[in-house]
């Protein structure tokens, strides 16, 4: 079985990462009753004895996360090390500093990048050496700040240089319009160039969407309708205290859990058995028709399960409909009115192939697929559902609806750049030049253009390509 390593960078990256590890342990605990270190656990965890050496089979002694935690401030990582998950990480997996990146991509990338490169490579190598078959790196970071954005994308480059055969999946939290960091458009666009060139697959996330999902759940919980109780375990926002106790819970914790659930569902079919498995390398193979178009819109359902037995369980088909509704997406976009290049349905739990086929048939007519991929559906069936649910669905769409997000970003960038606002903070960093900015915005423009070219084909009459003429 192949292994994956999580690289969490910056405050956002580490907070989400922490939620992920907590949920992963919870999921495996629910499935693995005998306490044996099995192949599923091996994917994300090492099993070590008291001396810290790996145990490859047998009873679980002590689980260590296959993770590297990097932050240029100490606050978040220290909290993790003092919290309930402290035994899952060890000091050899961390890189911290005290000064922070000042919300400046150039500081994160150019300054800390070069300063910490050797240490970073060393930690990554150590983590990779503990794997007998390393398949994938999951990078978690935000785009709007300095560390996650700058150092995070620097690390992406390092991953490609040092481990070219290993897949690079990036979970990027994009800043919202009212982000309190003024220079977030600069940071995001500079980071985008790196994502364009060095990531295999990117899952963009927007805080606005996560916030709306949390609100929806809160509304549901507080609706006061008699007899409605939600199975607490099943909440997509639940966390059992990876960082802090419930009393101190901040709104971000709930939002971070949603992203953690996304990552769990993404990897479920490669960890657990099912009748139609989907490995991580299949995601890239099926959903990335052209190298640069590797941005996937994700939606996750259900958000919770009702505990009340008197209320009939939501029909399976409703789950499929929900996955194609904007309320369940992790990014603000409108795939239904844009063009699908490809779509993947990762189903977990008690669902069979006929259910999937029926729903694909039903939903197809309302969706627009690109002419050369009219049946562009990839499916997977994993037998094990998430904790608290009998089934779940993660939909990943490669759709031109992401174009407005990028155009928005470019607009906000240009608004600042035209006035040269705050540029001096960046240019005063060693080896940071104006060309970095122009190249970044050019890369973004060319990406937007590629989506434009595809959008134009939408709605055009389909014509069959002329086939080869054979003489017998």
């Amino acid at each position, binding site marked *: 079985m*192949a292994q994956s390593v999580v690289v969490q960078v910056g405050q956002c990256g580490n907070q989400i990462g922490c939620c992920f590890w907590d949920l992963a342990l919870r999921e495996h605990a629910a499935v693995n009753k005998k306490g044996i270190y099995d192949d599923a656990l091996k994917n994300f965890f090492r099993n070590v004895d008291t001396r810290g050496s790996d145990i490859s089979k047998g009873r679980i002694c002590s689980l260590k996360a296959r993770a590297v935690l990097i932050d240029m401030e100490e606050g978040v990582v220290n909290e993790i090390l003092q919290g309930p998950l402290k035994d899952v990480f060890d000091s050899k997996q961390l890189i911290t500093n005290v000064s922070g990146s000042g919300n400046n991509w150039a500081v994160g990338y150019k300054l800390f990048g070069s300063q910490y490169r050797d240490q970073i490579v060393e930690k990554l190598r150590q983590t990779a050496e503990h794997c007998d078959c390393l398949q994938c790196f999951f990078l978690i970071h935000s785009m709007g700040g300095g560390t996650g954005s700058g150092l995070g994308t620097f690390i992406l480059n390092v991953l490609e240089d040092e481990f070219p055969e290993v897949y690079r999946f990036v979970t990027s939290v994009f800043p919202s319009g009212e982000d309190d960091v003024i220079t977030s458009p600069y940071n995001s666009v500079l980071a985008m160039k790196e994502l364009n060139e060095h990531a295999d697959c990117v899952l963009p996330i927007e805080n606005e969407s996560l916030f709306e999902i949390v609100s929806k759940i809160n509304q549901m919980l507080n609706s006061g309708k008699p007899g409605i109780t939600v199975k607490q375990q099943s909440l997509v926002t639940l966390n059992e205290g990876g960082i802090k106790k419930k009393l101190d819970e901040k709104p971000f914790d709930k939002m971070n859990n949603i992203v953690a659930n996304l990552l769990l569902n993404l990897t479920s079919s490669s960890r657990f058995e099912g009748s139609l498995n989907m490995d991580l390398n299949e995601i890239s193979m099926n959903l990335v028709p052209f190298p640069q178009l590797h941005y996937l819109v994700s939606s996750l359902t259900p958000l919770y399960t009702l505990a009340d037995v008197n209320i009939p369980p939501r029909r399976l088909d409703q789950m499929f409909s929900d996955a194609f509704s904007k309320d369940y997406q992790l990014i603000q976009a409108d795939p239904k009115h844009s063009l699908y290049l490809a779509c993947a349905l990762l189903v977990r739990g008690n669902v069979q192939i006929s259910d999937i086929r029926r729903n694909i048939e039903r939903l197809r007519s309302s969706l627009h697929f690109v002419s050369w991929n009219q*049946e562009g559906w990839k499916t997977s069936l994993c037998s094990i559902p998430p904790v608290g649910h009998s089934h779940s669905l993660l939909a990943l769409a490669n759709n031109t609806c992401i174009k407005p997000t990028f155009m928005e970003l470019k607009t906000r960038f240009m608004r600042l750049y035209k006035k040269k606002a705050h540029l001096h903070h960046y240019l005063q960093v060693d080896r940071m030049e104006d060309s970095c900015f122009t190249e970044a915005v050019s890369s973004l423009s060319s990406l937007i253009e590629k989506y434009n070219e595809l959008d134009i084909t939408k709605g055009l009459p389909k014509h069959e390509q002329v086939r080869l003429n054979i003489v017998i």
Partner: protein
Amino acid sequence: MSVVTVQLGQCGNQIGYEVFDAICRDLHSTQGFCSKKENEVYQASCKEHFFNEDKSEVPVARALLIDMEPKVISQTLLKAAHSGRWKYGQHSHFCQKQGSGNNWAYGYNVHGPKHEESIMNLIQREVEEYDSLSGFSIIMSMAGGTGSGLGAFLTQNLRDAYPNSFIMNQVIWPYGTGEVIVQNYNSVLTLSHLYRSSDALLVHENDVVHKICAKLMNIKQISFRDVNQVIAHQLGSVFQPTYSSEDSFQYRRNPLGGFKDPALYTSWLQPSDAFCEWRTHRAFNKYEKSAALVSNSQFLLKPLDTIVGKAWNMFASKAYVHQYTKFGIEEEDFLDSFTVLEQVVASYCNL
């Protein structure tokens, strides 16, 4: 007369398991609808056909399990062992840690050469157990990466290593929509390569089997297990032993008058030669009477043409081609494959 079954990839292994399980369950069933003596003769012949004997007296399936990632093989070995009635050989499997990623090029150009020696050795060891080898039955899907890519590579190798053996591929045709996005590319590449090395391709279409489950068997929530069991039943029927050490097989021409019509056959084939029938007295799988029809006809023309058409459409826009060139399958290789298949389509059309 023994056939080595090679189960490739998730599909091949899942179906292979169902085939042996169905045969074994049937072996032990009492509903043979024939005399006791006939039943015993049949059982002996069947066992010899499909299973080896080992010290524990639990029949060992004459099969090899090959996959590039371990989950499915572990499950398959476990299920067989748990049945108590049969099992797979202890050393009859080969697997790796990381799958082929639905990439034909990866299965053919990377996994193939890398594991050629190990896999061929595994096969050689199995073949040496038999007094006479009649051939290979390779169960594989066309849509994925291992069954398709590694399957094509392996078939070529088998043809080179055993030039006089009969090689038959059980090819699983994917659903028209909703399995793998690059399934048409993988299918085109697989079929064009298999054409050069295989003796016969027995095709099982998921869409057709699905309809059987829905309409004929009235199953409401159809799972892959249901689909696989139907395919297993079909395969089991086709491979029924008709020759045993005591009875010689009965061979009659055209018992059912309906097949005499020459219009069904091409001009260069006499109806009397074209139709062959083998009979077994004992019933299979609890059906009192059953018939398995294996035909070579224009029936497959439409599905084949559809797949080639869709693959060509996608290829014209060059979508996903970079995923294949990454592992050494260039545009010229695609074109070669398209050419081979267009020739096949044209040949069938001309009948």
